[in-house]
């Protein structure tokens, strides 16, 4: 049996919110539905949203508070109505720089798909205990928050009865509430940093509302138990994030949930030889969300981890539109490439570069800061000129920011040819 060879104009790897919005963006920009194929590894479209049954999705996009599956369904319906082809239960195995996507599924077998454009929408994975080297044995009862969420929300099973959660990012906070609502006792949420990286509303709605203590500047220093978790030792950390022995405290529990970082899944991206930004762990892209291989685009969590799916949808729509333009040979080229520098409090900016021709007042820049800052100024420079300044009462690593430049600023950038984002705390 030979593998099947197929051709498509636009291959989209991932059928979660990013892939779905990208597909619709492409169609909106004139691509024919049949020219697209969405490749999704789960048994249905929707991605991680399918297990995010809590509300809070769509405030920006729809002005409504939807649950994850509801938000996903809005896009899935439109994809189906548009007749955009997709395969599920299909895992992309490789991506070449020539845009050949090899995928496998029980139904299709092994398929070598030659695409004209590829949109990377693979999302991200969770950092496991192994990456933390937390001392102790390796008992059952230690889960990443997402794995626990899958068991509870999709399978209907509880990972444990008493839990400690490490990491106060949104997933950790959501799971603190979820476990509690299902009858488990969540004894504490520990956060290594002196601030939470989760959305403020989640701290209120998931911890405060349920009297779950949030222990900032704390981490888990030891895992107890051999067959099944028996407890954890937590400790306060100093300003260098090193545990302070005198503050060690034992908490009896049978479950430890880890929400200690999301890592964009760029194995395929690296296979194709695409340049990766070491800060975002995602591809380096231009304003079209095009990577450094022409015709390969990236959007959503695989590009940079988002807080709000609404922004994923917006970004992915842009990538889809760009891919559609690309296959028609209409993606604007030429003009000086302007590289964007992130410094002094700004950890990264997406896109990492923009071409002078393409930059305008509608170009949106997304960025994250490296710490919690109050009453600080977001500043954008081009050459020595300050072209944008905005005071923000609060900036935090867990809340992605975005901005657009006005016409005058855009003109300055076109002339000077560079762009720097930074934070001024004075």
């Amino acid at each position, binding site marked *: 049996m030979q593998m099947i060879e197929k051709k498509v104009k636009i291959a989209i790897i991932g059928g979660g919110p990013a892939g779905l919005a990208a597909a619709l963006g492409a169609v909106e920009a004139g691509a024919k539905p049949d020219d697209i194929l969405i490749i999704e590894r789960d048994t249905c479209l929707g991605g991680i949203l399918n297990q995010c049954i809590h509300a809070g999705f769509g405030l920006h996009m729809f002005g409504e508070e939807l649950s994850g599956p509801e938000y996903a369904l809005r896009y899935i319906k439109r994809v189906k109505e548009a007749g955009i082809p997709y395969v599920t239960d299909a895992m992309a195995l490789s991506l070449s720089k020539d845009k050949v996507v090899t995928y496998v599924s029980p139904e299709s*077998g092994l398929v070598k798909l030659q695409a004209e454009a590829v949109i990377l929408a693979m999302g991200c994975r969770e950092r496991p205990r192994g990456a933390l080297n937390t*001392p102790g044995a390796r008992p059952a009862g230690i889960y990443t928050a997402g794995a626990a969420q899958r068991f509870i929300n999709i399978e209907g099973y509880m990972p444990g009865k008493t839990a400690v959660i490490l990491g106060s990012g949104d997933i950790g906070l959501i799971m603190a509430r979820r476990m509690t609502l299902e009858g488990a006792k969540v004894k504490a949420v520990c956060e290594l940093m002196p601030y939470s990286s989760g959305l403020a509303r989640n701290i209120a709605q998931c911890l405060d509302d349920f009297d779950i203590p949030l222990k900032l500047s704390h981490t888990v220093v030891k895992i107890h138990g051999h*067959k099944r978790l028996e407890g954890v030792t937590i400790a306060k950390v100093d300003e260098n994030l090193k545990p302070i022995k005198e503050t060690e405290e034992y908490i009896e529990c049978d479950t430890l949930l880890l929400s200690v970082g999301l890592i964009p899944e760029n194995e395929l991206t690296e296979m194709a030889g695409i340049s990766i930004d070491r800060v975002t762990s995602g591809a380096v892209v231009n304003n079209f969300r095009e990577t450094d291989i022409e015709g390969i685009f990236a959007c959503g969590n695989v590009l940079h981890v988002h807080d709000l799916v609404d922004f994923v949808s917006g970004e992915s729509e842009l990538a889809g539109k760009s891919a559609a333009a690309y296959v028609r040979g209409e993606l604007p080229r030429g003009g000086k490439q302007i590289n964007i520098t992130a410094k002094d409090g700004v950890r990264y900016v997406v896109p990492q570069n923009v071409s002078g021709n393409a930059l305008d007042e509608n170009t949106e820049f997304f960025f994250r800061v490296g710490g919690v800052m109050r009453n600080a100024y977001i500043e954008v420079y081009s050459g020595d000129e300050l072209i944008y300044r905005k005071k923000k009462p609060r900036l935090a690593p867990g809340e992605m920011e975005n901005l657009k430049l006005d016409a005058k600023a855009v003109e300055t950038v076109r002339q000077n040819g560079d762009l720097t984002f930074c934070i001024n705390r004075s």
Partner: protein
Amino acid sequence: MIYDVAVIGAGVIGSMTARELSRYNLKVCLIDKLDDACGGTSKANSAIVHAGFDAENGTLKAKLNVKGCELMPEVCRELDVHYKNTGSLVVSFSDEDDEAVKVLYERGVKNGVPDMRIISGDELFAMEPNLSKNARCALYAPTAGIVCPYELTIAAAENAVQNGADAKFEFEVNDISEKNGVYTLSNGKESVEARFVVNAAGLFSDEIASLTGDASFDIKPRKGEYMLYDKSCDGFVKTVLFSAPSKEGKGILVAPTVDRNVLVGPNAVLTSKDDTETTPMGLAQIAEGASKLVSLPLPSRKTVTSFAGVRPTPTTGDFVIKKSEKMKGVLHLAGIESPGLASSPAVAVYAVELLSEMGLELVKNEKFVPERQKVVRFREMGDNERAELVAKNPAYGRIICRCEGVTEGEIVDAIKRPMGATSIDGVKKRARAGLGRCQGGFCMPRVAEILSRELGIPLTEVTKNGKGSEILTGKTKEVR
């Protein structure tokens, strides 16, 4: 039924011995107190097939290591187990080290280790480009290699079962009595009877020896911690790198694994038999020791996991391979610490020779098949092979473990094979699902579902590694 031989301990020694015994017309029973083979030290070690220069001349360690190293490639081929002939370097950084390296060389020659050389300069750095620039010279042993220790152990046990041996798990021998040349091994509830007994109980081999009235040795558990780095670090080292030995032991090493990860460790700390905990100090120690060997910083942001194994160090200093003092049909294969893994093929052959001397009748089993049923590994196949496989059985078209590229078909195989997996760790050891960079974060729920379905057990009965390690505590809304 009365077995001809009961083997206590399904680690690498017990499993290889059971396999060796299954070459003959013998009724063999392989027993382990855990829920699966390879639950102890055999799954948590350096995974090295040592060349054999380290052990003192005239010891069993020396003799069996050299022989085992020689036999290993063929055994791995028969058992369809990954093996790589990497060679090893014992590196010198000082005058004392230079001396130590020379001593090892001479010892190796006397032990019969082939083709060793002391190398330095360009030759050394061409062989190992990332070696620390402070390296003065190194003992190069081309016959050394690496293997996957749990793959090997399970393959050997499986092959034994395939060839007629019985495997009995969750059977903790706590009494051994003898009557009329038949030994009764009891766990308090049931018993196994056999004419000969092999004590391959690893960390507990002294306790089993005591049950036979033999207190001639003790096991002093010495823990070693390890860190494993991501596959993207493949090529960080090409050979197995050792620092020159000191009083504490072989020293910390940096080695590739057959799965293209990088392994560093171990330290050596006296502890208790059940202590497999990693410690902050231990991990810091191995990181420091490993850093000395290489010129690049250790990829500390790319740790996949860390773990610890406990060496069954015998108080006698050498492998304890001998008849029990009191019960003459019991053969000890005890205190098999390093170079135990490398020696295992030779230990098994030697054990059968000794059993024969002890009166075990050996008649060749004409139906013995040395090759185990080939293992399907989708990730290692070419595109056409894959296409054919999926067409034949669509379950091979569903990737379950994304990090290691393991399909549902392979996981089902792992469960259905002789002595198949019955737990999450059992699937890990056989099919590799869950051993990648996300450590089962993605695939564990799916593996659990497959176990539940194939074994016909509720999801709440799926364990990580036997009773007491259930992964779920109940259905939602049932907790209070």
